[in-house]
């Protein structure tokens, strides 16, 4: 005996499959790379992410152009600016000012911190890869190619931690100003343009990452609510 309900359901499913638009190129690439359809959708169908990718890459390219050649001043400037790129990427990937459906998303069961992490990692991964490559090809910078990574991680962690207290824009602005002040103070005190990447600062960055991780863990529920 034919189950008409089942036939109807199957027919509807076929119709929907035919009617559904083809996924975007980014989404198809992510799926081919092994990501699930849900994760690929979460990454590729988020307008905020595409903007932050574009912005982060634009900054990266500008920094890379500045570093072209062997001028030590340009190299220093590039290294000092580099840790702010992932911070910028995170700021542009999450929050009500960049994500049109932020409030709808808050009312879904997906945890805000998970969403922030997925979006941030994708933006930061792309930006850091390009930036690291541009640093590596810079003739004078090979020995310093990765000194900015730990400070970048620290600044990003601090920014995310600060986002549990205030808006993403304010958090990122605060962290950026703080970094600029720190760079100026350290450079003035040591007369070394790259002293801010010394061993002490690397250790300080590590401590900052641990503290920020603690704050984020304790206050992660702030990402599940609108700012009152």
């Amino acid at each position, binding site marked *: 005996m034919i189950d008409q309900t089942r036939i109807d359901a199957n027919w*509807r*499913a076929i119709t*929907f*499959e035919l*009617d*559904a*638009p083809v*996924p*975007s190129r980014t989404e198809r690439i992510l799926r081919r790379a092994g990501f699930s*359809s*849900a994760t690929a*959708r*979460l990454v590729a*169908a*988020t*307008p905020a992410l595409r903007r932050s990718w574009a912005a982060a890459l634009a900054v990266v390219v500008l920094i890379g152009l500045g570093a072209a050649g062997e001028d030590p001043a340009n190299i220093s400037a590039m290294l000092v600016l580099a840790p702010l790129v992932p911070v910028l990427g995170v700021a542009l990937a999450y929050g009500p000012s960049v*994500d*049109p*459906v*932020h*409030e*709808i*998303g*808050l*009312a*879904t*069961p*997906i*945890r805000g911190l998970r*969403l922030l992490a997925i979006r941030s990692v994708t933006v930061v991964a792309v930006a850091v890869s390009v930036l690291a490559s541009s640093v590596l090809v810079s003739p004078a910078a090979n020995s310093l190619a990765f000194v900015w990574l730990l400070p970048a991680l620290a600044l990003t962690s601090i920014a995310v931690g600060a986002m549990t207290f205030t808006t993403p824009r304010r958090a990122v602005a605060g962290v950026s100003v703080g970094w600029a002040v720190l760079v100026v103070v350290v450079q003035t005190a040591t007369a070394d343009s790259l002293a801010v990447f010394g061993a002490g600062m690397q250790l300080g960055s590590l401590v900052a990452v641990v503290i920020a991780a603690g704050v984020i863990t304790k206050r992660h*529920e702030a990402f*599940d*609510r*609108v700012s*009152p």
Partner: protein
Amino acid sequence: MMQVLAFGLGASFAGRRALDGVDLSIEGGVTAVLGPNGAGKSTLLRCLATVLAPDDGSLLLDGMNPKFEPDRIEIRRRLGYLPQHHGLRGADRVFDTMDLLAVMKEAGDERERRTMVFDALERVGLTERASDSLDDLSGGMRQRLGVAQALLTAPRLLILDEPAAGLDPDERRRLREILTERRQRSTVVISTHLTDEAAHADGVVVVNEGRVLFVGSPAALAQRAAGRAWAQPDAPIDTVRASWLQADGTHRCLGTPPPGATLVAPTLEDGYLLTIG
């Protein structure tokens, strides 16, 4: 359908105290939260939708307290929410946006999600627009899309903030049909500042200056104006609660009628205006 209980709920939004001591008990049917602009309707709906943490009081949804993360996540699995400013715009396609939200609502595999998305689009008459970009939709269509995303995953609690905003009469009729259909299976809470929208609800909650002033049926709200609404040919010179010129040239007045006044049948709007003062 979900049971909603609020006790002494107080909340702030945008730096001001927007709700104060709200008590509420809702289960099933369509409840309209009615109040003027800035009354605290959206803040109340944000609290019910668990996206805004109350400052004080308590809220229980199906016995679960959204203050606690596991409860909050479970509530959100049963919730459909349309904020007043839903942000459904941009170059993204209708289907992709709906599917993204279905993913965020933990809706099954790709095939299940596709069926769910098309079912929701079908209910609001947007199936044919699945491949269009959000910016290609009219304001009314976007509003209907907002309702459609709230209907994904068949919620037990449906919270819609000003769902009729920007809809033409036919679209409003369609929205009412959707809500009437949903009320069999969900607790539906909508906010509106339009009394004719609230007239179609099962229950009305009047909110003003962050406080609940009335809870009851639309008929009971209208009845509040019984014996306190009258019409007169001239503009009132005495202090009345409210008055306005009607199309027939008479003035409809609300308040304490003068001796010999021609009383008129009270409407929901009369009861609402008298309630908010």
